[in-house]
């Protein structure tokens, strides 16, 4: 081994490995690298790379690992606040939640694998995000999932939806992490490309924080957990391409297979390793496997690494260095053991019936060097590998068709076809509005005995045992709004997430984002991305909710058609006293119903248009960030003063559907509703527009004055709109020139029956 402490002047020559393909322009293209990028690699190397080296660069410089088309814009996002302990760049972001505790959290996409193999694609998505969190030293305490599919009238979509839900459920259930929420949307815009984003939240004592850094020259690199196989080779590069009709069969070998049982053992073993003090760094072998985990850990510490692939435990014989380095086999970790503590690592892993093998060491020469037995097969400067990926800022131009859709005259749609009650029940039974119980009844929501608010409300809440504190979390994004106006849409996503948290009694603290977009090389996609990032940056600044990490998923296109731009916001909030946790549904007959915020004439982008006219059109509602901030403060002040019985955000389906959700609760007992709206608006607008900045609260009538006063003090419009009735009464909402009147049983059947009616009995795979 030649170690050169100073900057290397001699270029290490690595002869081609017998049997490896020759590097041709075609091979370079297949690796997703442009001619310019390849030339840059040759300059960095000072020579032609070997096939193995090309594979390593291809993975590290893929969009997935290198963020080449997103990095420059992402730098515009706020990332700091006094409570942020770890911002972007690590496995997960970390915030201080008080009393010596910290919370690690992150969201990640598994869209491409799920489009090809929904069960395994979704399951391994959950597995990966759990590892990102427990490798920070935190024990996972909650999972959320944010999903998008095409319309459920397609058998293929039902197959994808059923498979994804099953995969998310089986993995999280087996590891024993409660699912506390998320969101699901159905729209033809996601027909070929489902969105599967999984978020995990972990809890730790602040002093247990560990980072993924290969520090300490001479320390030992160990591969821990499952063996390395041929599955998922080049998954990171695959995730950076568009899908086509042929993707199905051809890409299946690039989808990994999950083993949640091994994950559970790995979780326990990792936390034990971290608390044993025998390791200095740990990282999941996620996208791009050993390559990215080793290179990134070296990069963060400014060191080098030397790995002998012949020492990596493999599942099958005759794997090449290329395959071992790029395999994305699941449930594997790279651990940096403090020199001399290898036996301790072995002992802990053995207890958990897992394997650990020494595969290399941390070096001082800043090289990413790979051996196969004694033979060097790759020798690359580590820093350019992790940091030298070219980044691009591109031209972005809005697509004409989107502008036309946005500017479409919607006047004719303000006149309801038939009566309002019928439209209302249709809307309530739309899978986008209807109860998602069919999904979360397949997820364990109560394991770990800390779930205070289960899925189905505005946000999920888990308490921190031994304190009075709790963590609330939500994921949000309305892709239609982002499609019609990316900047507004992204602001709305952040605003809605914050409203969801305050409705549960939590102060919004920080976000993780999952930016799902089409091909950024297309001008109109890059436009969407740029505008969305700018909108998100504005909203995060206004709400003091910095971004602590996330994930970018480009190339969500099938046969050239992109998904709606979908920047999913995963937001975490803090509840300082569990007595402040608030339900979303009405609690007592006779309570007053108060609307905070105002109804507006903004039907654009609403679910009503999609359900009644199949339209995604119009200007999405405007969001006033200053008003949103005041609204958040007002609701939290009301909760502090124990004025409220319930609080619920108005979103898909508008005020009418929000009221129905408040009335129906979890379906076990329902309340009648009597509401009168006197807005000078078309009935459709009052009832179904998805205007921003509105929250429906209920309170004891002797508190109504206080509630309205607190709202006014914050400059938030507030008025009593009606009363909660007993469960024998109907659901009755009147507007200036019409009304909705329906029995609670009709609401119940529409809301709770819609998705089961489509999905049960379970569908088989038909294509």
């Amino acid at each position: 081994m030649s170690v050169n402490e100073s900057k290397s002047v001699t270029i290490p020559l690595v002869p081609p490995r017998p049997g490896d393909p020759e590097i041709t322009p075609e091979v370079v293209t297949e690796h997703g690298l442009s001619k310019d990028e390849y030339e840059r690699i040759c300059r960095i190397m000072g020579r032609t790379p070997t096939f193995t080296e090309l594979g390593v660069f291809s993975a590290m410089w893929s969009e997935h690992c290198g963020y080449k088309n997103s990095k420059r814009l992402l730098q515009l996002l706020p990332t700091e606040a006094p409570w942020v302990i770890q911002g972007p760049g690590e496995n997960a972001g970390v915030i201080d939640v008080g009393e010596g505790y910290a919370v690690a959290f992150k969201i990640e996409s598994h869209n491409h694998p799920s489009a090809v193999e929904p069960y395994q694609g979704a399951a391994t998505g959950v597995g990966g995000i759990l590892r990102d969190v427990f490798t920070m030293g935190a024990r996972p305490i909650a999972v959320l999932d944010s999903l998008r599919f095409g319309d459920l009238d397609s058998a293929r979509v039902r197959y994808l939806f059923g498979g994804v839900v099953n995969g998310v459920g089986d993995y999280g259930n087996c590891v024993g992490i409660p699912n506390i929420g998320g969101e699901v949307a159905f729209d033809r815009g996601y027909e070929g490309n489902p969105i599967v984003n999984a978020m995990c939240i972990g809890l730790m004592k602040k002093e247990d924080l560990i980072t993924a850094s290969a520090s300490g020259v001479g320390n030992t690199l160990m591969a821990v957990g499952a063996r390395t196989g041929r599955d998922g080779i080049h998954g990171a590069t695959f995730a950076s391409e568009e899908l086509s009709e042929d993707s199905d069969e051809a890409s299946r070998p690039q989808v990994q297979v999950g083993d949640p049982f091994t994950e559970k053992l790995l979780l326990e073993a990792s936390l034990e390793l971290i608390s044993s003090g025998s390791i200095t760094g740990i990282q999941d072998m996620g996208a791009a496997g050993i390559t990215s985990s080793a290179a990134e850990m070296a990069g963060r510490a400014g060191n080098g690494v030397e790995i002998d692939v012949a020492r990596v435990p493999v599942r099958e014989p005759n794997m090449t260095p290329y395959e071992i380095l790029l395999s994305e086999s699941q449930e594997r970790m790279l651990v940096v053991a403090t020199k001399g503590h290898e036996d301790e690592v072995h002992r802990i892993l053995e207890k958990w019936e897992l394997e650990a093998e020494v595969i290399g060491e941390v070096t001082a020469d800043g090289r990413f060097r790979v051996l196969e037995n004694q033979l060097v097969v790759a020798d690359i400067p580590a820093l350019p590998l992790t940091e030298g990926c070219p980044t691009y800022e591109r031209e972005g131009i809005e697509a004409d068709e989107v502008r036309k859709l946005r500017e479409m005259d919607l006047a004719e749609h303000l006149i309801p076809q038939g009566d309002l009650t019928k439209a209302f029940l249709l809307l309530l039974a739309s899978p986008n509005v209807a109860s998602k119980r069919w999904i979360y009844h397949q997820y364990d929501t109560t394991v770990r005995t800390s779930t205070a608010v289960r899925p189905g409300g505005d946000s999920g809440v888990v308490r921190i045992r031994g304190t009075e504190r709790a963590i609330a979390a939500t994921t949000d994004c309305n892709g239609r709004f982002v499609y019609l106006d990316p900047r507004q849409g992204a602001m709305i996503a952040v605003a809605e997430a914050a409203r969801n948290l305050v409705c549960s009694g939590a102060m919004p603290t920080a976000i993780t984002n999952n930016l799902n977009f089409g091909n950024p090389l297309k001008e109109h996609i890059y436009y969407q991305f740029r505008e969305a990032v700018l909108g998100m940056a504005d909203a995060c600044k206004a709400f003091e909710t910095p971004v602590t990490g996330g994930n970018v998923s480009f190339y969500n296109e099938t046969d050239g058609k992109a998904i709606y731009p979908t920047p999913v916001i995963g937001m975490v909030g803090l509840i300082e006293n569990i007595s402040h946790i608030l339900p979303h549904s009405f609690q007592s007959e006779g309570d007053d119903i108060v609307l905070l915020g105002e109804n507006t004439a903004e039907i654009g982008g609403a679910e009503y248009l999609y359900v009644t006219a199949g339209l995604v059109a119009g200007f999405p509602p405007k969001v006033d960030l200053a008003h949103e901030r005041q609204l958040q403060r007002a609701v939290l002040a009301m909760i502090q003063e124990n004025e409220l019985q319930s609080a619920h955000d108005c979103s898909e389906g508008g005020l009418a559907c929000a009221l129905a959700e408040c009335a129906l609760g979890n379906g076990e007992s329902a309340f009648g509703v009597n509401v009168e709206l006197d807005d000078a608006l078309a009935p459709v607008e009052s009832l179904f527009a998805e205007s921003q900045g509105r929250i429906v609260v209920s309170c004891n009538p002797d508190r109504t004055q206080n509630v309205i006063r607190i709202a006014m003090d914050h400059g938030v419009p507030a008025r009593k709109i009606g009363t909660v009735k007993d469960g024998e009464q109907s659901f009755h909402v009147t507007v200036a020139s019409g009304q909705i009147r329906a029995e609670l049983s009709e609401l119940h059947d529409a809301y709770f029956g819609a998705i089961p009616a489509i999905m049960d009995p379970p569908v088989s795979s038909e294509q």
Partner: protein
Amino acid sequence: MRVGVITFPGSNCDYDLYKAAQQIGANVEFIWHRQKNLDGYDAVMLPGGFSYGDYLRAGAIAQISPVMEEVSRFAANGGPVLGICNGFQILCEAGLLPGALVRNASLHFESKDIHVLVEQTDTLFTNKYENGQILRIPIAHAEGNYEANEQLLEELEDDGRVVFRYVSSDGELSKEANPNGSRNNIAGLTNKSGNVLGMMPHPERAMEDILGSVDGVGVFLSLATNLSTAGI
């Protein structure tokens, strides 16, 4: 009361069970599945989860874990054994309880609050409940569909060994109230001598108001009281 909570690889409710037993004042310890000695424990609990990933069949691999021979001996000597969810499945696989738990009739994992009727209050685990009391407790399982042949069912019913039965919130015994298709709506049962209880619902998840129900406390309180009355 000294309680041992057995951890198999893949158990994930061991900590919850530990906390529940601790809440009613027990001195609780985790027992790793390789341990071959249960001396000194007054009660043994098998937690929920996915021992060995439920690979092969739920509980099938865990039942040959080293500790299970000891659990059988402990039970044969009259020691109280409580198996919840995966613990129940393991007890059935080990032959400590009769019958089998097969795939839910819905073919889905079922996670929600259900109601059970307490049918027997003269057991070690239930005498703090009222006879006929209805409990609201979470379930979370894919294989909780209790299956037994007619002869066994008759025997269980005649001997009064069905301790918990799925009912509606107002106590009605119905198909709709049965979340997994169990024969006779059986949610929990004991062995012949009454010292081994298996149940699919999770009483350890219904111990505090913040979790939505305190109806599970009775299981642990009954056990603690009975053991302390017995001078333990």
